């Protein structure tokens, strides 16, 4: 797979393997990320793996885009892109009001009933593809193509933490009150911030995730326990 290189201002290089999400492209992203972090080229500060591309942030005093492009091409030769399966995690979701303001809209956009949308969501096999957007936001692949809907044209503000949101083939559980342009279909009481200094976030990239449906009462009792009420 031959990537496309794109300069990002003076200080980063974006290495893109595909236009659309696909397992091959993500395999390359993860493998290249591992190879680079194992042996950081001179001047590289950080790498940020995403769905189809890897951002390489560097110090423009020490290196530049074309030097790095050359180095990355040598990393790409003989790269092992075999996917390594991570741990299985179960996340509980309550799909009831007031936690699912967009369930109706997703149902009408996809021609399903609300329950059909929920069943399709529960049937998905999810993988943690990357962290992004905000602290602890783990992007999951695996939303059933029956319920894939595009982003909204503009983001909605003040979306509560714990919201389960979808856009296209992606799903995530929000960890903060933040704006989002994705469709909000439920709320999870599960904690993504573990509170453990050595392992501050629940997911590792590559983990497998399944969702379990809970009702409002169960949600309240779990959320109540977590907050010590």
């Amino acid at each position, binding site marked *: 797979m031959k990537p496309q290189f*794109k*300069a*990002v*201002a*003076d*200080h*980063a290089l*974006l290495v*893109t393997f595909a*236009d*659309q*999400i696909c397992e091959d492209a993500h395999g390359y992203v993860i493998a290249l990320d591992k190879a680079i972090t194992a042996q950081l080229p001179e001047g590289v500060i*950080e*790498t*940020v*793996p*995403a*769905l*189809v*591309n*890897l*951002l390489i*942030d560097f110090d*423009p*005093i020490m290196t*530049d*885009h*074309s030097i790095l492009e050359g180095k990355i091409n040598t990393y790409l030769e003989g790269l092992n892109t075999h996917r390594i399966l991570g741990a299985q995690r179960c996340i509980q979701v309550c799909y009831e009001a007031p936690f699912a303001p967009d369930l109706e809209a997703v149902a009408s956009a996809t021609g399903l009933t609300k329950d059909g949308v929920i069943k399709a969501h529960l049937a998905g096999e999810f993988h943690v593809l*990357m*962290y*992004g*957007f*905000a*602290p*602890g*936001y*783990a*992007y999951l692949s695996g939303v059933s193509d029956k319920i894939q809907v*595009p*982003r*909204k*044209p*503009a*983001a909605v503000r003040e979306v509560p933490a714990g919201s389960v949101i979808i*856009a*296209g083939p*992606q799903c995530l559980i929000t*960890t*903060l009150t*933040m704006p989002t*342009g994705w469709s909000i279909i439920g709320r999870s009481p599960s904690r993504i911030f573990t509170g453990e200094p050595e392992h*501050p*976030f629940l997911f590792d990239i590559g983990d497998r995730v399944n969702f379990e449906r809970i009702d409002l009462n169960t949600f309240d009792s779990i959320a109540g326990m977590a907050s010590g009420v």
Partner: protein
Amino acid sequence: MRYGVSASGPMDRLAFDAAHAALGNEPGLTAIEVSLGGLSLVCARGCISVAITGGDFIVEHEGQKTNSWTVLTLTQGEKLSIRAGKEGSWAYLAFAGRLKVDGWLGSQATHTTSGFGGSSVRSGQSLVIFDAGTREERLGEIPSPGFATAGPVRVVAGPQDQYFSKDTFTKFASAKYVVTEAYDRMGMRLNGPKLNFEDALSIPSEPIVRGSVQVSGDGVPTVLLADHQTTGGYPKIATIISCDTDRLAQFRAGQSLHFMPISSKQAVDEVRQYNALKTEYIGRISVPRGTFEQRLMRENLIHGYIHE
């Protein structure tokens, strides 16, 4: 950024570095970022020198009014206030000592949207400074960095400029944009010609950097700044070069700007030149100028020399 946490830190990194340099502090210590809301504090105990930099804020200390870019000493019972002045959105208050703060993930910076990290200063809060000292040989005005020029905000096209037509990109590069009230540490929404694009609402979420100019589905560009989200699915038409993001961060609502596209190679050259000037400047202001008496003596000597 790999766990979705932006690097955060000061909105204007040059002013922040200058505040520490002017006190002879090691670079990267914690300082307080003051927004347009201002800050006032009372020295409750002891005696400490502080540096104030960034923008053009009004600094009031014991009835004496100066502007930001100054070093002064606070003694017990004295009041210091920093208020929005003629221009600038962010001022920095650094201490001759170490500010006691909590850290997160090895940093004392504050991620404002989550509240993680060093945290924000609240009304009534006490600040504790370890190893507080005075820097009598450093008091007075700090020369402001003249090299941070006005002029257009320089950008490199992309990384998602392919979703925009040539005409739209030309519009972006030639039009005047105005900073709106929707401006905080996450980003700055701009008012100006709409930048429409096609078929990009389902692009895979891609990494974002400080300075990304992201265009939402309604065609409105937003510049993402220190507490930016680390990825996003809206296309980024261009990215502001690192030295110009600090300058832009000092803009206020209502101020206007133009973007100027340059090549990535030019961007690296510009940033290297800027960095050389910044290093020279920081080096220059970190040298103590002597106590008031020493400076008086030196100036008298020169005065005498001219007359002879």
